[in-house]
């Protein structure tokens, strides 16, 4: 607290009135201009777990959809002679990766046993028909992801559409849609899925996707409805209405962009959910049919031999678990990143 500021050096002219034009801008905004997307991206990058998950997912997608370009092995090529060979990576001599396996309590060289020449090696081993497990895992991941993505896309469309409709229209439309959702969600989702999958005489991607989509949209619809109800009375929506904007336009220009965070976050949870359910269906025997493979069928095939050929379950299971972890963690991260409360 300076009572007598004599120690401050004053220069002549200091007390001249300030030229307003040259002076500091009084409407200046100091922070850099960030779009919403940039802002989210920045906060996502700051969240290490979520960011790592994002990278992991990126890699998994690359592996699933582009892996074949690097690893030219037909996932369906059989070599029954080489059935159930454990992983063997040339030059690595760790049990589990050197082609050795414990059989009847003894460590044996499975490759030698199968009469494979020294040039034969499968990085992740083979399955019961001697198919390359790595190729199959890449292929299975792709199928799993395709199923999940398509199903999610469908329930995104249905869920968001009906959610907005329900929330925006209110009244009877709302009640009707809510009833449908209630009924659908009062049946355990797996049961519906099982019913759907069995009702289609031929099990396959289409029926699984249909079953997944039928079930999952309710969550999405509920979330978008709740959010729409909130947004509907927000001043900026009212403003658009007073300007004479039509309902579909409002939905498109105002609701959707503001719903996007909810939708994206929910998608991050729907996708792994779909993958998981697909795996589940495959496990109980009504999943994808051969020779197509999904992570679920691979795990379910693998678990039968878990005690003796643990790698057959571990590797696809690991991919599944990593996928699920990554999606969930990314979802969590995005939720934080989108959350206005966690601003800054």
């Amino acid at each position: 607290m300076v009572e007598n500021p004599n120690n401050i050096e004053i220069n002549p002219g200091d007390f001249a009135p300030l030229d307003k034009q040259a002076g500091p801008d009084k409407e200046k905004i100091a922070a850099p201009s960030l779009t919403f997307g940039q802002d989210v991206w920045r906060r996502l990058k700051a969240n290490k777990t979520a960011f790592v998950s994002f990278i992991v997912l990126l890699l998994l997608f690359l592996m699933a959809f582009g892996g074949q370009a690097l690893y030219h092995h037909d996932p369906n090529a059989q070599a029954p002679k080489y059935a159930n060979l454990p992983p063997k990576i040339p030059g690595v001599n760790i049990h589990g990766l050197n082609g050795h396996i414990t059989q009847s309590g003894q460590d044996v060289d499975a490759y030698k046993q199968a009469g494979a020449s020294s040039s034969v090696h499968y990085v992740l081993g083979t399955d019961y028909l001697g198919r390359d497990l790595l190729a199959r895992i890449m292929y299975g991941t792709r199928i799993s992801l395709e199923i999940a993505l398509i199903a999610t896309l469908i329930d995104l469309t249905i869920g968001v559409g009906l959610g907005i409709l329900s929330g925006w229209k209110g009244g009877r439309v709302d009640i009707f849609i809510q009833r449908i959702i209630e009924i659908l969600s009062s049946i355990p989702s797996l049961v519906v899925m099982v019913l759907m999958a069995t009702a289609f005489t031929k099990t396959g991607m289409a029926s699984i996707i249909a079953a997944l989509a039928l079930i999952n949209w309710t969550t999405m619809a509920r979330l978008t409805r709740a959010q729409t109800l909130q947004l509907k009375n927000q001043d900026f929506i009212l403003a658009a209405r007073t300007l004479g904007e039509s309902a579909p336009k409002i939905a498109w220009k105002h609701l959707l962009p503001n719903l996007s965070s909810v939708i994206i976050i929910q998608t991050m949870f729907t996708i792994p959910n779909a993958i998981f359910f697909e795996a589940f269906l495959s496990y109980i025997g009504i999943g994808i049919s051969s020779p197509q493979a999904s992570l679920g069928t691979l795990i379910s095939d693998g678990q039968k031999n878990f005690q003796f050929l643990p790698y057959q379950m571990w590797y696809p299971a690991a991919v599944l678990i990593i996928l699920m972890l990554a999606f969930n963690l990314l979802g969590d991260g995005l939720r934080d990143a989108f959350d206005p409360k966690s601003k800054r």
Partner: protein
Amino acid sequence: ACGSKSSSTSSSKQTANLTQNAELPTMDISKSTDVVSSNMLNNTNEGLYRIGKNGSITPGIAKATKVSNGGKTYTFTLRKNAKWSNGDKVTAHDFVYGWQRTVNPKTASQYAYLYSGIKNADQIVNGKKAVSTLGIKAEGDYKLVVTLDKPISYFKKLMGFVNFFPQNEKVVKKYGSKYGTTSSAMVYNGPYKMTGWTGTNLSWTLKKNNDYWDKKSVKMSSLKFQVVKDASTGLNLYNSNKVDDTILSSTQVKNYKTNKDYKVYKTASTFYIEMNRNDSNKTLAKAFKNKKIRQALSLAINRKEYVSSTLGDGSTVAKGYVSEDLAKNSKTGKDFTSDASVPSAVEYNQAKAKKLFKEGLKEIGETKLNIKLLSDDTDAGKKATEYIQGSWEKLPGLTVTNQNVPFKTRLSRSESGNFDTVISAWNADFTDPISFLSLFTSSNSYNNGKYSSSEYDSLINKANGSDANNTTARWNDMVKAEKQLMNDQGVIPIYQQATSHLTRTSLKGIIYNTAGSQYNYKYMSVK
């Protein structure tokens, strides 16, 4: 870790823990269709005979049997000391009642067709005649007369089949629709009686039946059963000494093949491929009528490799269409399959296959074939289609599409001829080759591929008719028929099913047969 707690292997106790891989759906003799219920019924009840080792006929309720009227009349004298577990005596009336109940259309027994050949049975099943007209009569309490429409050479064997067991009318009436739905709503006249089955649960016990006429032969005091559907669970249970027997899956087999507990139980069940000669796809119909193509398809399959590396559950390469260990030549003691062997029909020779396929294609004027391979969506079905697809596609000009559908869809599609090729399986109901062979007569409704050979038809006719009472001639008829079918490559046999078990070596005296009532625990003991 649990070794010390082992409850079963101690010899003093005479108990064992066994597993089944499916639920017990019923204890109703008329309604039993599956392996589990037939095993349980076979050990808790008894018919006129009991099937012993190697399908032999051992004494049951019948003390003496007289065959007359050219093999069309059987007169059974029943033992007087046979009792039901509720104290009632087992009488001829129980047989009459039981049989009539089974053929009665109201009962809707799914095995009533086995009665075919017994007088009026077919008409009764189809509701055309009264139940009372069935060719079975009780003459007093201990004499039973059965009349047949035509001689049935394997009739005595049938009598060991559970659907021909007697039923206690009093008990059936007492429980009404609940009869046979729990262990207590049932009465037993066999070596054991069942307790602890609620009708839907997954475990129960067979206890020694003290009312059994031959109870002195029964050593075991109790057999505990537990349903374990998952093979790994079963193995874990076995390894933790909780059970004394478990069914192994293929990888498990690989690891336990050398174990002293390892046992293979063959089943009279053959897996084979049928080719649709009436295919709606005319090209394929033509192709399947071409013997070279059929042979090529057969030769292209490396059955040995499939059975050992892919399937690996103890199943064996099919020797032919009729399964091994089903029937033996009564003179030479040789198996039917070796008498009727046609090695070329089940051999693997890729070069020859390619050559024949090429020739065959040329003969029908095609260069390419696109075949759909149908099977069910079970594990075995999937493995088989995947493997065969792989093998067949090595034939130049052949592409294969797999179709794995639910079991019942597969059945209806094969029946309606809606397939190109289908992997089928047939289980014998009783231990006689005819159980297999009658399938491929031209008129048989299960001849899905429409194999048609007048020679084959007449051989089967002879075996069922004129040669029915002549064991040797009948045998030769059947051998010839099998050879005919195989030489024509009418179907492509792949493998004979078997199940691999781990069974404690201390369990002795379990009698196993490949068909019919497979397990007989009457003489079982723990050492």
